[in-house]
């Protein structure tokens, strides 16, 4: 864990994920700043694969991920997936489960875990559903429970993989509001999305992936106003889906 300038979040060095004659990531190298980051790109560009590699869920074929230390320790990283996976138990118990599984929260008593879970649910506006079974909620509510579960872990970094995919506009707005709050609380958020409006409203930095490589990295304003790469230009024009 290298100590570097505090504005640096993570360094990606030559990441390759290859298999069966295909390279999902083909030499991704970048230094991401501690800002709100959106990873954009067409289908199959490697966005979700990159997020999984950054989280350690997927081992790269080559290359490494070096996170910037937080207060002298490895950063706590949480991830929320496109399709939230809630356990067959109450909403509150789902959040408690996350805390009980977290090595960083082993010292908490059962009562403390429960109190934190309730607080996290309040922050995402779902405290009134705490005793309901998680799996009978709507897709948007389930995603907010997943966000509450991740937020309760007090992560330094939150990785979001298409958190608003397949949700209606109302649910998307609710999720977006929660993501803004999480980022405002000091958590570094890396967001993979197809939702350009969300990326434009939320992100400060954009990383644009194309065919497993970073085609462009820019501020959100520059990316949407003046894309430099032909691929990003085609993507924004709707010629690259």
């Amino acid at each position, binding site marked *: 864990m290298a100590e570097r300038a505090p504005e640096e979040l993570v360094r990606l060095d030559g990441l390759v994920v290859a298999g069966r004659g295909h390279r999902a990531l083909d030499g991704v190298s970048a230094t991401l700043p501690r800002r709100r980051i959106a990873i954009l790109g067409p289908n199959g560009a490697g966005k979700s694969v990159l997020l999984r590699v950054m989280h350690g869920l997927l081992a790269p074929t080559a290359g490494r991920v070096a996170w910037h230390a937080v207060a002298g320790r490895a950063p706590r990283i949480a991830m929320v997936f496109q399709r939230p996976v809630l*356990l067959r138990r109450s909403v509150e118990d789902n959040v408690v489960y996350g805390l009980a599984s977290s090595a960083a929260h082993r010292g908490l008593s059962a009562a403390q875990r429960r109190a934190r879970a309730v607080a996290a649910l309040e922050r995402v506006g779902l405290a009134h559903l705490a005793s309901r079974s998680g799996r009978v909620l709507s897709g948007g509510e389930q995603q907010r429970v997943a966000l509450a579960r991740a937020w309760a872990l007090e992560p330094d970094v939150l990785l979001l993989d298409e958190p608003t995919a397949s949700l209606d506009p109302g649910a998307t707005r609710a999720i977006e509001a929660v993501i803004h709050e999480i980022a405002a609380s000091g958590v570094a958020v890396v967001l993979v999305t197809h939702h350009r409006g969300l990326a434009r409203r939320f992100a400060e930095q954009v990383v644009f992936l194309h065919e497993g490589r970073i085609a462009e990295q820019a501020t959100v304003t520059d990316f949407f106003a003046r894309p430099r790469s032909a691929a990003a230009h085609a993507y924004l024009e709707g010629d690259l889906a």
Partner: protein
Amino acid sequence: MSWIADSLAGAFALAASGDLRLYAIVALSLEVSLAAVAIAALVGCLIGAAVAVGRFPGRRLVIVVLNAAMGLPPVVIGLVVYLLLSRAGPLGALGILFTPAAMVVAQVLLITPIIAALSRQVIEDAWREYEEQLRSLGVSTVAAARTLIWDTRYSLVTVLLAGLGRAMAEVGAVMIVGGNIDGVTRVMTTAIALETSKGDLPLALALGVILLAVVLSLNGIAYAVREWSVRRHG
């Protein structure tokens, strides 16, 4: 065809008469099979979860063997248990041959592979859905297996019912290791076989009707529980 109707009428009359001999047989059947299912559930679900979640050399071979073991012939299991428990056998000192305990052992060996193989499939399907999320939360493999068993509990009840059905319907193994001793090791299936051979069809049919009623009731209860759970927990 009138003999079938007469036998059925006699069977229902016998079932309703409160015949102690009949109910002793039913009680012993349930006792032996439920004990076997309880033990096999513990062992089988643990094996199923370990194979579903674990990654180890030879895992595919274990899956094939488990699936194949679902079709083990009961008489072969009965014979093996008989040899193990007979006085000259390696476990002869236990002295449980021709007792209900020996029947439980045989049924455990018969249904453990069934419960292990089917629970492995149920838990592995859930693992595909949960794996990334649980790994993301830092859940250990053992804790993940525990979580998956709990989360698939209603599907696993169906698996246990399959095991119970197999145990209660089984005749070959319990006949060999139990000996079908009246009042000691006689269960519904062995009694049906015996009474049929003796020509006492009303008793055989009464036992058959009760056996079907027990199996139907257990499945009905399990179905109702599962429906309720799906509505409540999704």
